[in-house]
């Protein structure tokens, strides 16, 4: 089963193409992570999948339909996005921001219904934010803020979650916190998760499927043990990696590395 079929897309800003003719299928009900060096187009691919960017050529197919032909509100009921640079306006409280996640399910001017409250409270609960729900967001720490945005995406109640570097700027414990939460949402509720991560070891440990990119092209894709190999890491990142097996996930992780000569 696939959640998305990306079919020969070309994407770029104004006159420079960032991605040229890329095709990839993203499996349903699994955690997929896109990896690659800075500027390789992984965020661009994620934005294309999530319809923030429109492909110049090719198409993104969601449930058998071109994503741009589906009503954007319909898509929003199936797929929630956490952008890399999400920043809340000042004065907004945690509850208020999370409640905006219900927008795709609301009609017109009506305020929150009972069902909306149920989802909002559930989202606050699983992200451990219930105690902070009436705090202004700017009074929270970086890790808590990130969880607020995730809670908003969860309140949207979608099968698919798309996250662009959800662990950036967080310390090690908070990074793990977020990733374990995503893993739980995937394992227990079967949600499809697609994300970009910079930390290779996290990507390998928490993903069912990896997509490695370089210079706008797909280099390799597959299960972590297939993608996280010395030769692939050489090709993608220009590093000589010293690999071993992660004691927690049994997937390969990189102990240390050197630049290729």
């Amino acid at each position, binding site marked *: 089963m696939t959640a998305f079929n990306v079919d020969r897309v070309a994407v770029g800003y104004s006159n420079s193409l960032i991605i040229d003719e890329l095709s990839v299928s993203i499996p349903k009900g699994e955690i997929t992570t896109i990896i690659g060096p800075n500027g390789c187009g992984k965020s661009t691919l994620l*934005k294309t999948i*999530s*319809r*923030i960017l429109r492909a110049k050529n090719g198409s993104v197919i969601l449930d058998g339909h071109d994503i741009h032909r589906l*009503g*954007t*509100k*319909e*898509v*929003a*009921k199936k*797929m*929630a*996005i*956490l*952008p890399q*640079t*999400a*920043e*809340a*306006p*000042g*004065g*907004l*409280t945690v*509850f*208020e*921001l999370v409640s*905006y*996640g219900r*927008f*795709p399910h609301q009609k017109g*001017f009506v305020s929150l219904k009972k069902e909306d409250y149920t989802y909002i409270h559930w989202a606050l609960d699983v992200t451990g934010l219930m105690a902070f*729900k*009436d*705090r*202004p967001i*700017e*009074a929270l720490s970086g890790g808590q803020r990130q969880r607020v945005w995730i809670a908003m*995406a969860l309140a*949207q109640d979608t099968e698919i979650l*798309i996250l662009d570097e959800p662990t950036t700027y967080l310390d090690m414990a908070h990074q793990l916190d977020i990733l374990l939460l995503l893993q739980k949402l995937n394992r227990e509720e079967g949600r499809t998760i697609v994300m970009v991560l910079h930390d290779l070891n996290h990507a390998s440990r928490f993903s069912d499927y990896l997509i490695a990119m370089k210079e706008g092209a797909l280099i390799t894709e597959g299960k972590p043990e297939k993608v996280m190999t010395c030769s692939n890491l050489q090709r993608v990142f220009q590093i000589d990696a010293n690999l071993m097996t992660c004691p927690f996930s049994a997937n390969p992780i990189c102990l240390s590395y050197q630049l290729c000569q």
Partner: protein
Amino acid sequence: MVASSELSAPKRSRPIRAIIVLFGGMLALLLAIGLSISFGAADIQLATVWTAVFSFNPDVTAHQIIREIRLPRVLGAAMVGACFAVAGALMQGMTRNPLADSGLLGINAGAAFMLAICFALWPSLPYLYVILFSFLGAGLGAGIVYGVGSMSRGGLTPMRLVLAGAAVSALLGALSEGVALYFRIGQDLAFWYAGGVSGTKWIHLQVMSPWLLAAMIGAVILSRSITLLSLGEEVSIGLGQRTKTIKVVGMVIVLILAGAAVSVVGAVGFVGLVVPHLTRFLVGHDYRWIIPCSIVLGSLLVVLADLGARMINPPYETPIGALIALIGVPFFLYLARKGGKEI
């Protein structure tokens, strides 16, 4: 860190606060309008204001003064204030730029420029058409500022837009003055350009009203989308919003509001900057409340400024543009220093 009682339960208390601001503001506005009508060269009692409005007698001089001079003037002030305030609120929400204001982003100067041309070439053009020139000019100003701003590398930062706005405003202002000098209409333009509602006639209000009504209804309908847009474009798309459509409709509303206001009072700045920030501080971040409250508080600010303009140095009138700038400039500097995480 911040856990005062005021901040700890805004979920329920915010709509209540908004309603208090809305109705309190309306009450204050009515009072200010009454005061403004009664105050002037000819002393008129508040009671006379009441009878002039509700049981008009054409034989009483005071009633005539109120009907023909003071009432249109104060209503004009209220309308113009509402226009600038809502235009500012919409722009700040759509662009996430805390410094957005039709005065700072060249829209007012553009409208004023087109009006100068209009006065120079067709001095007897009816106001019904004059206002269309003002809309056109507002669009021109916005177009040039966004054009100049986005040409620079690194895109449109709040500060860059304001700088482009200042430069374009200065240029358009100079061109307006050039037009005024060349066509010898400086006298007509000078006070109008400095900002004043003293010349407001019923015809202005009649022509403006349908535009304003449509734009205000549009703004209220759009308000929920503006709230979501203020979370950022990508988040807004993710929530299933048609961000491009919303921005285009929002911008058209801004141009109508600012254009209409400038055609009556001239290029008065800072109302659109100060009022939405004050409103946001009072009622929180939901534009479904910010827009209606901005209408009321914007009206109140300009009616008071107009009243103050007549009281400072009677019998002369201080330009209200200058009076509002007196509050607006320090506020702008404060926001600019804060770096604008406000929106």
